[in-house]
């Protein structure tokens, strides 16, 4: 196994670690962090697989930088929304509030 493949596997591992945490955690903060870990996993896969026999392909690096910008914005929105949810419901979880 080449180092690049090893990194790619680590990235896929991170993706599933994040997915697991997103599924089992109740509190919103770990769930938002879990999504960030999944994102980092995807970025590691992209960067690792950019290494080719004839050098390094720059396009995935550009994608990762764009992806990081998107992830930062989404995280900022998620954190702000989490605070509003905690303020309105008294807990930072997605408890069902019922229809009324």
């Amino acid at each position, binding site marked *: 196994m080449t180092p690049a493949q090893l990194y790619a596997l680590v990235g896929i591992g991170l993706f599933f670690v994040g997915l697991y945490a997103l599924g089992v955690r109740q509190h919103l903060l770990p769930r938002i962090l879990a999504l960030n870990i999944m994102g980092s996993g995807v970025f590691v*896969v992209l960067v690792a*697989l950019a290494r080719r026999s004839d050098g390094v392909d720059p396009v995935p690096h550009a994608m990762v930088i764009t992806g990081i910008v998107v992830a930062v914005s989404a995280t900022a929105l998620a954190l702000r929304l989490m605070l509003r949810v905690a303020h309105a419901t008294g807990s930072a979880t997605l408890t069902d509030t019922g229809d009324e």
Partner: protein
Amino acid sequence: MSGVSLLVQPVWLILLPLVGSIMVFLLASRRAAVGVAVVAGNLALVAGSIGRLGITGPWQHSVGGWGAPLGIDLYLDGLSATMLAMTALVSLGISAYSAAYFSAAAARHFWPLWLLLLTAMNALFLSRDLFNLYVTLELVGIAAVALTAMRGQREALVAAMRYLLTTLLGSMSYLLGVALLYHSTGSVDMVLVGEAPIPASVAAAAFALMAVGLLLKTALFPFHFWLPGAHSSASAPVSAALSALVVKVGFYILLRLWIEVFPALGDGVAWLLGILGGVAVLWGSLQAILQQRAKMLVAYSTVAQLGYFFLALPLVAAGGSRVWGAIVLLVIAHALAKAAMFMAAGNLLAFAGHDRIRDLDRVVQRMPLTAAALGLAGVSIMGLPPSGGFSGKWLLLQASLEQGNWPIALVLLLGGVLAAVYVFKLLEHIFTSGTPLGEPRAVARTMEWAPLMLAIGAIVLGFLATTTLDFLIIGEPFVPGRRDDY
């Protein structure tokens, strides 16, 4: 290059709403007027693009002169132009409604986000590289979540949070699929990826990841858990935008992937999605029938109507572009009718102060235009002639009978009957008297006209079905492979 052809470059469809969004953010007043003007301008630009498409055929534009793979290519064919036109028309209706609906304080939040959502959707329909689609998909999601949360009530905040986690999970899943495809093909251009040899195992993993991500966003059963809460707790124009337009975006990408990137998908996948779609039709309709509140009923109706798009997928292999055309007709008909329904339901809520179906009091005498909008939109949702909903379902019924596909024909008919039950449940109570709770408040004229115009649009689509189907196939969007005529 002449001035006219410069103006019909697709890049303006992204720049105009984007600049408009920043402008309404900076403005201290008259946000609604500027917002409506921008959305009207957007419709004019789309009309220009459609005109050019009819004359010169599909075309491509490299932003800033940088071609792929470093630059971003925009691409317009019959399918993307149809989606842009649907978005532009429905957006204008929603904008006219919103101008009267929101207070000055709420307008400060609504208009910049709304124009940003329009920017993102336009960019998405013009993109055809997988990574650009990811970025625009994420922009659509973020703007949609912020609009959902805008109302600030507890249930809207919780629903928006659930929606955000779902949409981000969907994006991550989609992006991992893109990474796998890029690794084995060295490209993110849909057509190039589709033509490159991809190992079967990679293709299967990539499709599974991307499809699950997009289905989460499209809320196909059983991924619909976030939809009724988010769509019913948002303010009325936002509900209309979410149900009519935002959920279609994921389906559009899936359709493009299905045709261009994964043309070799087996019958098994089509049947799996078809069965989920069939369950969505039946389950969503039953839930809609059981709801006690108008907005929840309309939201579950969306779950059901989204099911039809997937229900038809097993017919695609043998039916080709005719079946795709019927599906797109249903997408447009649903966009028009559902936007009308959500805005009409918003009128009921604004008028009576509640939307409990049982307690609606003789709405038809007090708001005849709203009642007419609900009735006409209901005709299209039920699939009665003449309407866009009827044309789409009729074509699908024909295809399923020709192919001897009885299960699909049966679900199509049963879904129509169930839709009639929930539409009449709503209509029945707007004709009868109920217990008025407090003094009813008058609703602005434009808030009655906007849903009525969109509902009439859903009916007119039935008469324009052939024209729409002919226009759709410009540039052969339903045939895989590179075309050299642009």
